[in-house]
């Protein structure tokens, strides 16, 4: 970070600690450069201004999905959200919406992970068996290998904003990917799961999950394909 490119931005940070009656916002003046990210700012605050600020990160390059936050109301990974791209005098950093706050800007992702249908292993079988066949159309499968399970899609979803029982974009997209990958997946069980009142039909196709996804997973498109699949199944049953 060169000295001549540094400026100061006012960063307004969401604060909440367990036991607090309600959250508050603290403001900090943070030196930033053109390349500074929201995560850089949070780390600077933690190191130089307030060591009690809790934040979560790991990889710094948008692959671990742990630093998802809202920056001026828009979801993003803190590690790749450049402050120079954020307009306004003050930059407000908040935890993801529609998930409980664990500590300051750190969300509890347990409810997000519990939405996924089982099996939802950390490493999928196809990723460590050498004899696994490469799918014929790799592009069709590649996107869902990209999901980093950051929870950003759930935060951006207007249906999840008013319905905590909705499975949400990531889980439904995961189910769609499982349906496409014919490696022993129990298709009927997955379709039954997606066909529930909290499943694919609950989506209202605002495509905000796709807009917000930092990994180009395009969950909304996959939910629409899931609906097509469910529709085809209903047609088969009725005929």
């Amino acid at each position, binding site marked *: 970070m060169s000295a001549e490119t540094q400026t100061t931005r006012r960063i307004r940070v969401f604060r909440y600690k367990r036991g607090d009656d309600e959250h508050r916002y603290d403001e900090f003046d943070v030196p930033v450069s053109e390349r500074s990210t929201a995560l850089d700012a949070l780390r600077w605050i933690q190191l130089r201004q307030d060591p009690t600020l809790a934040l979560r990160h790991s990889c710094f390059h948008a692959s671990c999905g742990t630093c998802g936050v809202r920056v001026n109301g828009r979801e993003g990974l803190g590690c790749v959200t450049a402050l120079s791209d954020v307009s306004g005098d003050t930059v407000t950093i908040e*935890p993801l919406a529609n998930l409980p*706050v664990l500590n300051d800007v750190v969300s509890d992702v347990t409810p997000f992970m*519990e939405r996924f249908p089982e099996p939802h292993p950390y490493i999928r079988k196809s990723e460590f068996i050498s004899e696994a066949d490469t799918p014929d159309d790799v592009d069709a499968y590649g996107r869902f290998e990209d999901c980093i399970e950051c929870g950003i899609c759930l935060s951006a979803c207007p249906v999840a904003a008013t319905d905590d029982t909705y499975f949400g974009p990531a889980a439904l997209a995961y189910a769609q990917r499982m349906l496409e990958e014919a490696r022993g997946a*129990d298709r009927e069980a997955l379709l039954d799961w997606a066909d529930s009142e909290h499943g694919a039909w609950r989506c209202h196709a605002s495509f905000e999950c796709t807009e917000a996804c930092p990994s180009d997973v395009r969950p909304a498109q996959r939910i629409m394909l899931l609906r097509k699949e469910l529709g085809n199944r209903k047609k088969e049953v009725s005929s």
Partner: protein
Amino acid sequence: MSVRRGADPGTEGIRSARDDVGPIPRKNVGPVAWFDIRKRGLGQFAFSLNRLTGLGLVFYLYLHLAVLSTLFRGQEAWDDFLGIATTKAFLLLDVLLVFGLLAHGLNGLRLALIGSGRGIDHQKALYRSCQVIGTILLLGAALHILGGD
């Protein structure tokens, strides 16, 4: 392979996790979130307008039934209503009604298309097309409604 039926987020597991930790931040209180299009994309605009026009059309349905009920009060009451219904101000409400019907109906067609797997990757272009077609039809309807004798 089995699918966890208990994955329903309304189950006790999620509730307990939520209750034990902290508040759930929301962008807005309740259904206000449906209509907040700040920093959102075209899809959210379409979603919001669909909800708004949907509510408007439901309101209109009941209003329409209430207006028709004036028939029960005889010829004079109905004629009085027609006197109001043919004013320019009232006719503007008819144009608003046509806008609601077009916005909701055309977007409904788009949603039916993408929900059945057609044009998913072109959903924005589909919505833009709906906007163009809707604008042309609305202009035609407005000329017809307001330009009559």
